[in-house]
């Protein structure tokens, strides 16, 4: 009983179809990269990195303040989100009992699923309302909250992957629990932890929605942390929906820069983890 030609045809057809779908999906990535490369590079010049935005109607200007602004807000977010997430992850991996760990993990997953715009609302309620104005601080709080879940998860996952024999080896030498964790387990998991933090950062670096009504925006330089501040993603949004063609060009440039940054961090993070696992396998 040989396989009927009909079955063979269906087989070949379906399998090709699935390959075509994959090709389609992959091609989207290349379309995005290509489009941004062409349009972004075209509009990218030194002014972009050094000048401030021009007032409405005037041509030219750059996004220097937005680049610095993004840096400031992300720094704040990292300072808020990463330590809390890291230490909570240590608790889950090294100290916690099963029931408590399950609860916290569930809550962390919940937090991860909250739409970023909703986080923005909460940061608004927590920081902007009491202060009565928008600020870099509010933006940092919003993004910091978003960084917590991934920080917890990656920390827990990579600490758990360190074999117990390491912990026993340290404790058998007279190290306390705390010493074991911080001088043996954490260093052993370091490449994974760093990689995780980089991916975390890349994710929030592109976030726009939570900044719309926390950091808001600024046409000028922002002093300190308590003024509204310009950020790259928000500028892209504002310029993209503006009527002026010149602003569209700048939006492309900014989009290109942002995407390159995000992709660079992603790829580096993968490299870090691959190198880390390779060296420990020796």
């Amino acid at each position, binding site marked *: 009983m040989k396989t009927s030609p009909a079955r063979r045809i269906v087989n070949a057809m379906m399998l090709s179809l699935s390959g075509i779908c994959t090709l389609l999906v992959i091609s989207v990535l290349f379309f995005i990269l290509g489009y941004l490369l062409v349009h972004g590079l075209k509009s990218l010049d030194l002014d972009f990195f050094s000048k401030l935005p021009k007032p409405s109607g005037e041509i030219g200007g750059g996004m220097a303040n937005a680049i610095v602004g993004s840096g400031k807000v992300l720094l704040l977010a990292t300072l808020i989100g990463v330590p809390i*997430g890291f230490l909570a992850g240590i608790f889950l991996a090294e100290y916690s009992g099963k029931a408590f760990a399950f609860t916290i993990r569930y809550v962390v997953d919940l937090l991860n699923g909250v739409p970023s715009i909703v986080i923005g609302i909460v940061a608004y309620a927590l920081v902007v309302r009491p202060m009565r104005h928008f600020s870099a601080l509010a933006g940092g709080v919003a993004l910091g909250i978003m960084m917590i879940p991934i920080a917890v998860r990656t920390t827990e996952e990579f600490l758990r992957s360190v074999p117990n024999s390491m912990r026993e080896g340290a404790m058998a030498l007279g190290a306390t629990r705390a010493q074991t964790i911080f001088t043996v387990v954490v260093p052993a998991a370091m490449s994974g932890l760093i990689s995780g933090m980089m991916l975390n950062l890349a994710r929030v670096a592109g976030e726009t929605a939570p900044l719309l009504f926390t950091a808001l925006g600024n046409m000028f330089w922002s002093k300190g942390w308590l003024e509204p501040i310009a950020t790259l993603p928000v500028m892209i949004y504002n310029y993209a929906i503006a009527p002026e063609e010149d602003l569209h060009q700048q939006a492309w440039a900014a989009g290109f820069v942002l995407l390159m940054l995000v992709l660079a961090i992603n790829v580096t993070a993968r490299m870090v983890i691959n190198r880390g696992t390779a060296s420990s396998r020796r």
Partner: protein
Amino acid sequence: MASSSIAGSLRHRANRSVLARLRGGDEISYLVTLACAVLVFVVVVLIVAKLWGNSQPAIRAFGWDFLRTSRWNPNSGNFGALPFLYGTCVTSAIALLIAVPTGVASAIFLAEMAPPKLSNLLTFLIELLAAVPSVIYGLLGIFMLLPLIRSYLVPALKGTFGFLPLFQGSFYGVSLLSAGLVLAVMVVPFIVSVSREVLLAVPTEQREAALAVGATKWETTWDIVLPYARSGIFGSIFLALARALGETMAVTMVIGNTPKITASLLSPGYSIAAVIANEFAEASGDLYVSSLIFAGLVLFGLTIVINALARILILATSQKAAAA
């Protein structure tokens, strides 16, 4: 002799500072890490509390009618979120309709057909797509996708399906359809990534059993592997749905931001996330702000429910595979 002095000084150190060491190391470490874990819990509670609390004025004013009325009038103080709910649901539906078949098919290719090295490379690239910021999808949506849709897709749709109320009326670029398409592109990587993992988790013995009786590769996949992984794939769909519901920037840039309910997909619309993004910063008056926050609360609730369902489904498949 030097060696006995080491043992001696270690003993001396231990005896002298037993209390100090005890207090210094383990206690602090335990308490600080516990505090952070509790803090995470507190943050989530705070989120729910703030959302709920700040929605109260709107809840008191409108109750559940909020979700049934479609008047959104900041001037008269009448707020009904039905148009946003409608837009959110319609765009997500369009997104899933396109992304699910494409995504699952790609996952099948990557899990069942492609050699491991190719599969890993392609998966890596597809996962990079998930890392692209929403605002960039929006940017490309406005300037790359909308012209394409206007020039090619809409005429084609009108040509073949023009009789349907879905595709009637004039098309100006920004529309429910455009938003749905952009969302489809954005959620496909999630479907591919999770479905691929779920398919890879199906035990090889299952495939071998089918192939051994002469089934073709496709038949094995369709009849044996997919049903086995079914709950996990549904899980990935729910995950994608949760993402689509909450997507803000790309949607607000191409949906048209018009609080109207129309049968046609070609007309502009609005979504919950988009209205919040657009109007929150300038909203004045307690009821206005509160209504926006109420809408946010509804969105929050929706995503929680769907994420929970997703997790249960994905867990179900992995448990089945582990038990096998």
